[in-house]
């Protein structure tokens, strides 16, 4: 059985590089962007499943064309990119709108995007499409039209099974995403990128502000261990 896989990917700013302006707001101009960490795991897993079972991997990406190229060099067969900012409700409406027109057996998302850390898009999209969501996967297997997932929950690992089509969200532990080779990067330029501009959907929440959390610390550098021990005795 070959599988049609769709991977949902968000391009994000490199969080460690984000600067702060005088009003403590984040400054993102000129900051490098990358595919959100867990989304790279989702894409890697999609490519591995395709390598095993045959089929096709389509990446649906929020971001720039560079993000699409990166996904294609990691092994996606085609990419759809768009760049509309909204909340989780709006994102799920938009993704469902795009994906409804595509063929799919399996949809993969990250458990969360690392800038928003919302854990919402996967379950929402599954609801919007009327398919089951299996979250927090650390292992995925396909077998006779079923997907079997090992979920990493707080106190247990839970092995669950459902019929395809289904949506699975993956954890960082599921695999080690590949670094594309030069040949793969060059090969990617032949693959298809479709740029779309869906209209801005209704959102459920609006962002009023984003402010850096200040942590005032003393930042004293000590020279010797004796001194450190004294401070520890005083602080404990």
């Amino acid at each position, binding site marked *: 059985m070959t599988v049609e896989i769709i991977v949902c990917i968000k391009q994000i700013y490199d969080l460690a590089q984000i600067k702060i302006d005088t009003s403590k707001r984040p400054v993102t101009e000129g900051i490098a962007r990358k595919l959100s960490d867990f989304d790279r795991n989702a894409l890697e897993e999609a490519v591995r499943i395709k390598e095993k079972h045959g089929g096709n991997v389509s990446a649906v990406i929020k971001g720039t064309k560079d993000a699409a190229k990166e996904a294609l060099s990691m092994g996606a067969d085609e990419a759809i990119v768009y760049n509309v900012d909204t909340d989780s*409700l709006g994102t*799920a409406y938009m993704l469902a709108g795009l994906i409804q027109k595509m063929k799919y057996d399996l949809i993969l998302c990250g458990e969360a995007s690392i800038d928003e850390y919302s854990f919402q898009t996967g379950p929402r999209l599954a609801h919007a499409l009327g398919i*089951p969501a299996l979250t927090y996967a650390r292992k995925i297997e396909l077998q006779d039209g079923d997907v079997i997932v090992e979920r990493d929950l707080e106190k247990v690992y839970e*092995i669950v099974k459902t019929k395809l089509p289904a949506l699975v969200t993956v954890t960082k532990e599921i695999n080690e995403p590949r670094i594309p080779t030069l040949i793969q990067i060059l090969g990617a330029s032949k693959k298809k990128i479709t740029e779309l501009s869906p209209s801005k959907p209704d959102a459920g929440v609006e962002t009023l502000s984003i402010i850096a959390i200040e942590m005032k610390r003393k930042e004293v550098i000590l020279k010797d*261990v004796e001194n450190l021990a004294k401070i520890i005795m005083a602080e404990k």
Partner: protein
Amino acid sequence: MIFVFSEDNETAFEILSEANKLADSSKSKIAAISFGGTEDDYIACGADIVFSINIEPHEDSVVEGISVLIDQYKPETLLIGSTKFGREVAPGIGQRFGAGCATDCIDFSKDNENLTVKRLVLGGRFITTQRFLRKPQIATVPPGRFEKNINKSRKGEIIKISFKPAKTRVQVMETKKKVPQEMKIEEANIIVSAGRGLKKKEDLKLIEALANVLGGAMGCSRSIAADLKWLPEEHWIGLSGHKVNPRLYIAIGISGQVQHIAGIRDARTIIAINKDPNAPIFKSCDYGIVGDLYDIVPRLTEILKKKS
């Protein structure tokens, strides 16, 4: 009406106390959703009404059950425990009702009619304020964020709800228990934490010895718990691990990436031991010492042993 749900009872108790604060300003009734056995406790913790649903709770049936109640009672707000279970239920309900949801809210207020929340974003370095644009307003609340408030003399109403959930599409084949852990790192006054600066698992002994002299608990970075699996998840500190507030936090061989710092913001004093003078941890600590942990930690442990 404000709905409160968490399959984790302690978290439900905590949210009920926060819901009461929100309700004071709006005179809303608070309704807790129970899947059996917890009705009286919910009332003692602040529920005016408990909807008691007698079904096998899993993600799909809970979404369905709460949806039935939303259709009937039209709550303006739903507060849901931010466990992995809750974080699947909340957006599921949100999508079903065309409603927004804010994950891991740490602060709630009212802006006229609308709920306004604060949550951490961008690796936990920033705090965002968000306002709901439509109803119901759904927010998830991290376990341990608020304090429960028990009063056994409180009165409330229990309403039994019966409905038949659709057949689940997801079949659970097996559950494997994780190694259970007694420790609650959130409760430790002193935490000595290990990072990737350690070369091998056995070297955790150095960290443990220091923690023991100080009567503290051992913590670690994500790398140690998630990638290397040298310590169970209970020790994992940071944005995706545990958020702690000890009097003293000692970070050893931890670089101090934003996501780690997000877990230790509330520590009173942070000490760092790292061999790289440019490690970001030195910008987030009170006292730091630049050097090889294999040299510093054993010496420090010896000195402290003599002092105590």
